[in-house]
């Protein structure tokens, strides 16, 4: 479904992504793990079109989308819940969710998806009239995911959804991610919480200072000694 080929991204003289290639097949959860500053967020931002690559290609369903705008990519089915949640703090929960469906015109279907999001995240329904900035960290994360779902994406990019959450909430978020995937949305998940991510992922890529250094089945990587040492705390 999504394929990245030899992507290079620079910030001035910083070479942030070096010949990055990765594939996400339809129906999969693929995780991209790596240390701080490895280039995970940059990868997702480039896939969404917020950052232009120096060279390389991005394909969606076999179509070259490297030179399309972020708007076109949302329309084509790429949606992202960004690092740090980035909800619109002074707008209500409902307004945030409506903005997720900004490019859609099918009012009835939008209403259905809103119900679907509320069903998945009942707390958002209770707080729908509340300013998003007043939500707890966990609720804001749910809102960011719900908002990303409102565009009815084919592929959902999640950037560190477990960041800063209490262990119990982390469990909840990961099980929600699994549910979303089982309901038919392909997922590319960036995480620092490697053990949780590897548990739910079909496949995984490991990134170090801008390059993919390892890839394989989630369960296999969990057994790998290198991974254990570097990311799983022994």
């Amino acid at each position, binding site marked *: 479904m999504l394929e990245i080929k030899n992507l290079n991204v620079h910030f001035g003289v910083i070479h942030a992504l070096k010949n990055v290639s990765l594939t996400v097949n339809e129906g999969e959860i693929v995780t991209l793990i790596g240390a701080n500053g490895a280039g995970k967020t940059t990868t997702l931002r480039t896939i969404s079109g*917020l950052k232009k690559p120096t060279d390389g290609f991005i394909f969606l369903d076999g179509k070259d989308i490297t030179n399309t705008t*972020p*708007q076109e990519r*949302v329309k084509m089915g790429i*949606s992202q819940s960004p690092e740090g949640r980035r909800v*619109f703090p002074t707008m209500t929960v409902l307004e945030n969710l*409506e*903005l997720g469906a*900004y490019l859609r015109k099918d009012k009835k279907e939008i209403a259905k998806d809103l119900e679907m999001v509320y069903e998945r995240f009942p707390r958002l329904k209770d707080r729908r009239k509340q300013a998003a900035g007043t939500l707890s960290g966990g609720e804001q994360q749910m809102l960011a995911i719900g908002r990303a779902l409102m*565009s009815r994406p084919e592929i959902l990019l999640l950037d560190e959804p477990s960041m800063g959450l209490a262990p119990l909430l982390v469990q909840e978020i990961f099980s929600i991610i699994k549910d979303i995937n089982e309901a038919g949305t392909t997922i590319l998940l960036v995480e620092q919480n490697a053990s949780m991510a590897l548990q739910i992922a079909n496949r995984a890529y490991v990134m170090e200072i801008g390059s993919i250094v390892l890839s394989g089945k989630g369960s296999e990587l969990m057994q790998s000694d290198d991974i254990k040492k570097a990311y799983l705390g022994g």
Partner: protein
Amino acid sequence: MEQLLQQIINGISLGSIYALIALGYTMVYGIIKLINFAHSDVYMLGAFIGYFSMTTLKLGFLPSLLLSMLFSMILGVVIEKVAYKPLRNATRIAVLITAIGVSLFLEYVTMAIAGANVRSYPPLTGILTESFNLMGITITMQQILIVTITVVLMILLQFIVKKTRIGKAMRAVSLDSDAAELMGINVNSTISFTFALGSALAGAAGILVGIYYNSINPLMGTLPGIKAFVAAVFGGIGIIPGAMIGGYFIGIVEVLVSGYGNSMYRDGVVFAILILVLIIKPSGLLGKNTREKV
């Protein structure tokens, strides 16, 4: 007491004009963090378009108002596209200096075309020249006209910003333009739309100031522009209701100072207020005291 009320009534019409201009400053600042110095010249040109519409074209007041708003709207969008958009990734100071350049450019081009002389504005006619007494306070139809137009425009603006799709996009871009882009919002066209709205209001203010002071000239934008900017800062720059409150506040203070004190101090007091606000509550009356996002 009556005199005080009278002054406040007088201040409200001046405040309406400041509020209309302040809205443009605040909306543009809210969305691209730019103090658009050229905004006061959009307002000045709005006054000139209104003038030519009423004199040369012999159109009535309302058609002239709409024409002036339309012209200002287009001018604002063109300024943004030509001068600011190419600098989207430049430093803020570069954009600020560009804005000052655009402002000077508009002022001197206007002087070259229309002359530097002061023109007296076509007087209102008919019922609009009348005034009446309400418990000892004189209210002129001109004041009612100014306030009515301002209030209608403000309600319209609130409706657009709060209820429409593009208004929501405006708020989203001003809160977080990257996140807005992830929603599929076209940030550039949203910025253009913001300039269009703010400039249309400035155009309306221009024609209203023409009938308020009865005279216009190519440098007329400077002082009211700065005062409207103070109004925007007073209310909390980037916050729409703040600009409205700030505009009325500055207008009323100015009239009170001229009425009770000395009109020589009128402008000084406005700047003293700015300094006080910046010391006591830098984020303005309605602003939250948060440090600026990096």
